[in-house]
């Protein structure tokens, strides 16, 4: 491939969302769903289960993001699709929007100005991600999708699950299918579980990193942002 051809290829900025662009996470979002359940009994049941499972989620997240997702998304079992959509928009307005990092706006604005396509890649569910994607005006986004049967969530995620190394796989495939130059592309993430995602682009960047990611970023001289 010639240099001219290389420069003609599109570039993208891939963003993890929770902890990277916003200070909330999937648990906050689910808590909102749980606390807004139509039945009082269901509300109490879901909230108690969530609180009781928090240590388990923490352990699962430290061990493997996929394990965490398997354990966590079961909570959505029984929600109707209509409710997930409506409350998803509420969650964006009430929880996510006020918790967008100040620097996220200018990061995305400057990245757009440099001609990079903006792509969100998140382990959160699509009902919550769509309003955020619309808000940032990104070019594309991918999130986890709940399996819905007869209009009701089964508590399982559809494949491919967006987490850990799968994010990297998704980015590589997406770049190949859509002609993106990954060497010239950027990726932003906050967690050690996203090291594979960051590793597939030419310009990885650790944002508000956890210890594992910060250590890796320092070892490889990746930029570290605190948004």
């Amino acid at each position, binding site marked *: 491939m010639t240099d001219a051809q290389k420069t003609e290829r599109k570039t993208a*900025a891939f963003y993890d969302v929770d902890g990277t662009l916003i200070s909330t996470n999937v648990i906050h979002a689910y808590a909102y769903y749980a606390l807004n359940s139509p039945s009082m009994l269901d509300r109490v049941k879901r909230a108690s289960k969530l609180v009781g499972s928090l240590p388990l989620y923490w352990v699962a997240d430290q061990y493997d993001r996929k394990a965490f997702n398997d354990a966590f998304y079961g909570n959505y079992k029984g929600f109707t699709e209509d409710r997930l959509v409506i409350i998803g928009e509420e969650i964006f307005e009430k929880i996510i929007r006020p918790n967008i990092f100040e*620097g996220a706006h*200018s*990061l995305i604005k*400057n*990245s757009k*100005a*440099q001609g990079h396509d903006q792509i969100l890649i998140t382990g959160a569910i699509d009902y919550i991600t769509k309003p955020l994607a619309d808000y940032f005006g990104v070019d594309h986004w991918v999130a986890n999708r709940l399996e819905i049967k007869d209009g009701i969530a089964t508590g399982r995620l559809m494949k491919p699950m967006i987490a850990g190394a799968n994010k990297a796989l998704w980015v590589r495939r997406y770049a190949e299918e859509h002609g993106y130059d990954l060497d010239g592309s*950027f990726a932003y993430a906050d967690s050690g579980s996203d090291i594979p995602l960051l590793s597939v682009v030419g*310009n990885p*960047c650790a944002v508000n990193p956890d210890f594992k990611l910060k250590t890796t*970023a*320092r070892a490889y*001289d990746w*930029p*570290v*942002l*605190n*948004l």
Partner: protein
Amino acid sequence: MTQWMNNQVRILDDNSLPRYMHFAEDFITYKFPEGTRVLYPNPPMAPIKNRRAAIRQALNNPEGGVDPLHAQLKAGMKITIAVDDISVPLPSMKKPDLRQDMLEIIVEQLIENGVEDFEIVVALALHRRMSEDEIRRMVGDKIFDAYYPHKLYNMDAEDPDAIATLGQTELGEDVQILQRAADSDMLIYLNINFVPMNGGYKSIGTGLAGYKGIRHHHNPETILKCKSYMDPKNSALYSSNERMGRFINEKLNVFHVETTINNKMYDDALMFLATPEDDWSPSEHMKFRSMQWALKKLPRKGKRALFHKIPADYGLIGVFAGETEAVHEKTLEKCWQQHAVKIKGQADVLVYGIPFASPYNVNSIMNPILVQVMALGYFFNMYRGKPVIKKDGTLIITHPCYDEFDPEHHPSYVEFFNRCLSETNNTQELRKWEHEFANNPNYIEMFRRGNAYHGVHPFYMWYWGENGRDHIGDVIVVGAENDHVPSRMGWRTAKTMDEALEMARETHGEHPEITMMHHPPFMVADVE
């Protein structure tokens, strides 16, 4: 016996003692051949004893036909006070910093005259943000506690709402300034003139501008047209700032306060380091050898941290206030009095040691790009008239050239060094990446929200060395601990000074004229 040419120039003979040179965080010594000329800084000028009285005197008796500061102040005015950042002086001065003295006096005058709407801005341009502790140290507890962070803050040259473009100079240069300053009834600039390059129109033309303005003079073409950065009359860099500064002064009411400091970089106990080795007492020789031995035993990080914590005992030698040009003329006069060392004739071979600090790595690491800027930018330009070294002469520097970077302060330097310089060290070719680095969203956010230098900064540091690169024929680095750093810089290496001088002789003959500049403390050679 060593001969004196004048007080600060010594010609060595067979009996002369070895000279010491900075070697990053260490010292090395070498017995130079007979006939070597060694330049020493002037002794520190006597400091003004009552600094605060001198500052008040300057504010009340301004230069350039303007009214005293207090006479210009009226209730309800909007005022911006800008102060130089941590890059001057080097090392930081002992507390209280001069900026603290100036601020406390000026703020008191503002309040006495009913001015409530004032803000204090650290004039960073594209330098890194100062930390809270650094600002506190610079302005003192009283000002910090009263005004930080709402009325005392780092400027943000990448905030589109914070920088105004006032127009263009007659040469089409974009003139930028802090929006707050543009909106103010008066801009008061408080400067510390460390070397003649500082201050004057450069304070505002560069210090309060963003990339769009600074790119007009921080480029290879302008740098190549500079005879010396230290000689404003022969510096294209200063001329560009002068055009911008005059443009700004026509639109804004600028009240400039400039201070000049002496070169007392060391405490009394270590001041012998600034004097010829032949004049040291036996106990001073012992002290130096003990220090050298102790430093060798310490890990580099420890030495670095230690050195950055030792402030200098600078004394105020001049303070002037009022109109920029009139103030700066007086300031420069004082600066030259302190720094100028007269010499006759240029050298075939110039030698200097590179210390652990530059204006851009305060509390940080002197990375390879900064070693380059000290060697070819700052130290090379420490002259007025002609360069100390002849055209196509050989420069010998001493530095380990370690491949170390501070990821928080210099993230874009890492990429510049590993990606760009590994491909080419041709300045014109390197320029193709400037725009990309300047607009890299990662570097912009690290600059705005972290403590990183602007993404474009390594390019400026490289350009800054361009007139040195253009003039000098060959650079030999003594003591480099690797090959790749000197190689990327385009430098040759020698294990010892003997070897380096032998290499120089291959170019300049058996008896080259060798000059060593024995700094820091800094001097500016006035070359006839």
